[in-house]
């Protein structure tokens, strides 16, 4: 063989062998060409160098680097059939195994190969995409500083390579998109590769070729989120131990929760415990956090509005049509929170538009209005004017519907109407205080609403009793209007009629933006989220007037108790009854605030068990609520 690339055992500075780059390149070309004439020795040596990857001594590293650089110069001599062993060796190399210099040389080789011939383009892009995820042994090291450094190093080179290839081959992003989407790890991969893969996808979206591939990538990410979401069964969220019975709960458990946790974490203890072991939930949690952080960076770069359009479309197509999505919709919530005036309103408007369009299928319309109701109630960042304009739209639609339909009560025939009414009442349960204080709103909104509620179609009887009850209680306290019939629901969660209008999908108990049960997500969402405990219902005023200085401590006591437990009650036990999503807070909280003696009918209520006298505030106040039912 001609010129052997020497190993440099102990190399001293002045003993460096001076081979010019072109000499090395021509040597490599020779080796490649010799395969065609049957002489494989030098070629095999080359392949051998490529395969040698673990525990490299410094001279071996230098050899590898030189070889890679030489190959980059000789790409035109590489033939896809004759040199397939070399090519497969190259494409199997992972940048994660090497230091920066070798990684650079490898990236350069891949880029040269990609642009030299269309045949290699897909293979090269595939190789780069496979470098999104580290080899299995490295996955654990990712958390450590050394691992993070390597990660930054590799990913920056990979994405820079994409850009270079796109510069020379304009249609490469199209191919890249297909390859990235095909290469997405499934959710069943044990090695959690999907988290870092999605991180890379989002990096692509925000990178220089983002304009070309961004929207498809985002939609693929949301698709994956929904896939994970539907994998988490509702039973994973419910309390595991049903033997305790829904209506009896050991007080000790409550104590444990209260004492052992800090106030803001304690609320979710029970429900999170059941989700804690759930690996899919953890995965979803991580992915959602990645997405949130990505949205934050989009907002910083001023791109959020554009990204939001894609998200909106994705929501419309994927999330809205998924059956009762549990957490994926919080992506929208967070995006809206980052830009309330534009994105926030855009989301609400889209949902309202969907609701009023006759051409949309019924479940879509009912879903949309449930999303809207939950969103308007829970979004801390929405201005009162926005909420009122949305509500007005809903009320106007309902009024029009009433005037057009003269029938009697019929849950099946007027499902959309009833879900609209329920939505309005639900939002008002959260926001009534706001509207009561503004007289103009009172007349614009509440007078037509009264007409709707008193119509023959009788929404008050059909809609979810818990919602109606709370709404009426607040309405009475605010002296908005009185209902001629008293509605005694006996603390029913739901009724025959509400089930009827809810249909098979049970859209009557769908409150999508109920508190998020995923831990990490929740820390993002919490600052902009309205918990029921934060809401001041209108009947609060009745107590405030009577209280002097001694009332406040009771309030605090009750408040604390409720704060720490209401979301458990809400999420846990509310959900432990068949379906979930019913907002138990309303009447639970109301009960706590109200009179001393639990009502005789409290057995039926979920909150019933909390009525145990031992837990009631020790200072007993006479009930001043005029509306004791």
């Amino acid at each position: 063989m001609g010129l052997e690339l020497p190993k440099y055992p102990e190399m001293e500075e002045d003993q460096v062998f001076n081979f010019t780059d072109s000499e090395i390149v021509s040597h490599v070309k020779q080796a490649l060409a010799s395969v065609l004439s049957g002489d494989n020795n030098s070629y095999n040596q080359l392949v051998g160098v490529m395969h040698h990857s673990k525990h490299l001594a410094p001279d071996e590293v230098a050899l590898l680097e030189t070889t890679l650089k030489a190959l980059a110069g000789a790409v035109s001599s590489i033939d896809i059939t004759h040199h397939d062993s070399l090519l497969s060796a190259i494409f199997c190399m992972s940048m994660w195994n090497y230091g920066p210099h070798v990684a650079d040389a490898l990236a350069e080789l891949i880029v040269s190969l990609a642009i030299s011939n269309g045949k290699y383009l897909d293979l090269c892009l595939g190789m780069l995409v496979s470098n999104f995820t580290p080899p299995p042994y490295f996955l654990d090291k990712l958390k450590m500083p050394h691992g993070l450094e390597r990660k930054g190093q590799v990913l920056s080179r990979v994405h820079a390579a994409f850009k270079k290839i796109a510069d020379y081959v304009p249609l490469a992003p199209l191919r890249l998109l297909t390859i990235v989407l095909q290469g997405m790890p499934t959710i069943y991969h044990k090695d959690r590769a999907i988290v870092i893969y999605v991180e890379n996808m989002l990096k692509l979206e925000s990178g220089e070729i983002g304009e070309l591939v961004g929207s498809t990538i985002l939609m693929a990410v949301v698709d994956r989120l929904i896939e994970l979401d539907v994998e988490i069964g509702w039973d994973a969220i419910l309390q595991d131990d049903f033997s305790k019975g829904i209506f009896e709960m050991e007080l000790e458990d409550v104590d444990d929760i209260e004492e052992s946790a800090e106030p803001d974490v304690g609320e979710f203890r029970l429900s999170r415990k059941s989700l804690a072991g759930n690996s899919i939930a953890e995965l979803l949690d991580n992915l959602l956090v990645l997405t949130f952080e990505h949205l934050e960076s989009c907002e910083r770069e001023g791109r959020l509005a554009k990204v939001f359009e894609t998200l909106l479309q994705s929501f419309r197509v994927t999330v809205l049509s998924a059956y009762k999505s549990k957490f994926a919709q919080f992506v929208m919530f967070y995006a809206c929170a980052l830009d309330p005036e534009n994105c926030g309103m855009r989301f609400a408007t889209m949902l309202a538009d969907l609701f009023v369009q006759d051409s949309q299928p019924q479940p879509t319309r009912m879903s949309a209005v449930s999303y809207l109701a939950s969103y308007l109630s829970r979004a801390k960042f929405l201005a009162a004017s926005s909420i009122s304009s949305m509500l007005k739209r809903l009320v106007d639609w309902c009024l029009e519907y009433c005037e057009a339909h003269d029938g009697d009560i019929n849950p099946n025939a007027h499902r959309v109407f009833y879900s609209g009414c329920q939505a309005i009442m639900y939002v008002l349960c959260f926001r009534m205080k706001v509207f009561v204080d503004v007289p103009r709103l009172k007349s614009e909104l509440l007078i037509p609403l009264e007409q709707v509620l008193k119509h023959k179609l009788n929404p008050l009887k059909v809609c979810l009793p818990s919602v109606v009850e709370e709404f009426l209680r607040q309405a009475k306290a605010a002296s908005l209007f009185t209902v001629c019939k008293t509605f005694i629901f006996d603390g029913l969660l739901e009724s025959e009629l509400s089930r009827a209008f809810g249909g098979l999908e049970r859209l009557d108990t769908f409150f999508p933006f109920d508190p998020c049960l995923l831990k990490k997500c929740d820390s993002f969402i919490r600052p902009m989220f309205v918990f029921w405990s934060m809401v001041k219902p209108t009947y609060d005023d009745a107590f405030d007037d009577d209280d002097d200085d001694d009332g406040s401590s009771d309030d605090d006591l009750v408040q604390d108790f409720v704060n720490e437990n209401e979301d458990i009650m809400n999420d846990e036990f509310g959900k432990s009854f068949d379906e979930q999503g019913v907002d138990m807070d309303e009447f639970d909280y109301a009960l706590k605030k109200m009179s001393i003696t639990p009502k005789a009918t409290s057995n039926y209520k979920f909150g019933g068990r909390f009525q145990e006298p031992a837990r009631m505030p020790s200072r007993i106040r006479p009930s001043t609520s005029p509306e004791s039912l």
Partner: protein
Amino acid sequence: MEGLSVADANLVMYLHPSKSRNVSQSILRELGSLLFKFNETFDGVLLAYDVNILDKQAKILSGVHPYFGLRLKANLLLFSPKPDMLLEGKVVKLSQESIHVIVLGFSSAIITAENIRGEFKYRTKDTEELFASKSHKRHVIKVGTMIRFLVKR
């Protein structure tokens, strides 16, 4: 530049029933999905189209999914370079071994060293790479130059 042609095509497009609400949009979308891809039937890459619907009525195919077939008439701009055609493109990368060219903004071509005329020598001048001609002093090829080349394959 050779290789560009405008063709008149009579097409039949089969659409899924779900697209029947907005037919014109679906047609445009289908044709759009063909853009910048090599198409066997047209024997070239579709660059642009102008389409007219011939008949308001369409035949429904029998089968599990009743696709319906629409007759269209389209003007298609096609790019189909064949060997021994001359093309022009802009240089984007120069190296000792090759010149990389982009044709019509989307198609990439490479001219390897053995196919570059002997008179051109690779030089690096002030970190700028270029091919300079030995016979004509002012004739240089740099990044951004438009060049004309012959298609080999």
